[in-house]
């Protein structure tokens, strides 16, 4: 990875304010949600975020300056972003053309495409014409979309369709059922039924491509001394070993426990981020803490004072 000072374009003695301003300026320009489909902007943004994660943190910056830490390993895990959803069918939720159902409205044809497709409404009545594709939406739970499920969809005309939701289906994905749309005219084949799958968000799991993330509550004892804990995964409970001296925010990976293998893709991983929960402390813990003199005292709020 490049030198973070070069990436942000600041001198090595830049103040924290100057670093924050440089980061903000670059983020405005390269934020991937504002540059959809532009892989270069996305790469730049990743590099800028990684550089910022070192330089915005005085402790990490000091380590880097003293050569105790190199710039690699600061790549942040890719996270789910707005464009992943807005680009797909589910993005129609925020459409400005008023077409929510899927098919193109007159406004979609608009002035750009009308000159190309202005002829579309003049059809010869005796010519064979392919049946219309019909669009439907089907809501599903997060786990049914991840693991796959079969659902029955009742159409407005009373027909029912068996819809097989394949494992790993993403929010906004459209399933095509051939020949189950509108009838063709004058001997032409029927159209297709296009079923947009709307995936409800899950209380604990968050999908990130083929990986799944969750926040895992652990006790103080489990975090400090380590131990085996049960972790919910889309496939059920799995045992995981928490290493000794873990902390809130430590992220542990369960390989292959994310979205199951599908469409030739290998199974994703599950990332569990530890969240230490104290519960109701008792007298023994209070007594211990009163007498405890930490060998390595920390100031967890150092950042906040330096970057209000």
């Amino acid at each position, binding site marked *: 990875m490049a030198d973070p000072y070069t990436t942000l374009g600041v001198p090595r003695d830049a103040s924290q304010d100057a670093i924050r301003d440089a980061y903000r300026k670059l983020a*405005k320009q390269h934020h991937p949600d504002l540059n959809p489909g532009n892989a270069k902007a996305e790469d730049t943004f990743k590099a800028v975020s990684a550089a910022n994660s070192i330089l915005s943190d005085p402790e990490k910056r000091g380590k880097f300056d003293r050569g105790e830490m190199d710039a690699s390993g600061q790549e942040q895990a890719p996270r789910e*972003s707005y464009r992943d959803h807005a680009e797909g069918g*589910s*993005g129609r*939720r*925020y*459409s400005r053309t008023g077409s929510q159902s899927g098919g193109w409205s007159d406004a979609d044809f608009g002035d750009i495409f009308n000159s190309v497709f202005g002829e579309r409404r003049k059809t010869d009545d005796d010519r064979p014409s392919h049946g219309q594709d019909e669009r439907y939406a089907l809501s599903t*739970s997060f786990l049914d979309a991840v693991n796959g499920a079969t659902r029955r969809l009742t159409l407005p005309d009373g027909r029912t369709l068996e819809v097989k939701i394949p494992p790993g289906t993403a929010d906004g994905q459209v399933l095509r059922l051939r020949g189950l749309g509108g009838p063709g005219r004058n001997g032409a084949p029927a159209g297709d039924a296009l079923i947009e799958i709307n995936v409800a*968000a899950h209380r604990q799991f968050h999908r990130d491509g083929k990986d799944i993330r969750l926040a895992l509550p652990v006790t103080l004892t489990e975090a400090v001394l380590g131990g085996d804990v049960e972790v919910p995964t889309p496939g059920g409970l799995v045992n995981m070993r928490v290493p000794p001296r873990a902390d809130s925010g430590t992220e542990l990976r369960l390989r292959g426990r994310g979205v199951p293998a599908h469409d030739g893709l290998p199974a994703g991983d599950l990332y569990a981020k530890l969240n230490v929960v104290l519960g109701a402390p008792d007298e023994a813990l209070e007594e211990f803490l009163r007498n405890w003199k930490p060998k390595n005292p920390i100031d967890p709020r150092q950042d906040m004072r330096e970057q209000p």
Partner: protein
Amino acid sequence: MIGIDAVIAEISGLKRQDLERWIANAWVRPDRAAGDYVFREIDVTRARLILEMRDEMEIDEDALPVVLLLLDQLYDLRRQMRDLNNAFMQVAPIDVRRDVAAHLATHPR
């Protein structure tokens, strides 16, 4: 299903009153079930983007509707282009597709 409390817990730095105001402004449009908000993943990522635009990019809330209007139109156009591309792939014969690609490559935009 994920409700407003889970969204606030998920997005660090997001305050309930901000999210409620954004919903009232129709910048974020969750579903409603039995009087409660129900968020889809697109709603959660949109709320996070709005927070980043306001706090990291310093676009104040008076200016945000303009940005969202343009952003929504950008994504509308990208979806239309994708639909058009898909329709073209399904309907147009290969030689027509090649001709169009050649035409686009040799004509200035």
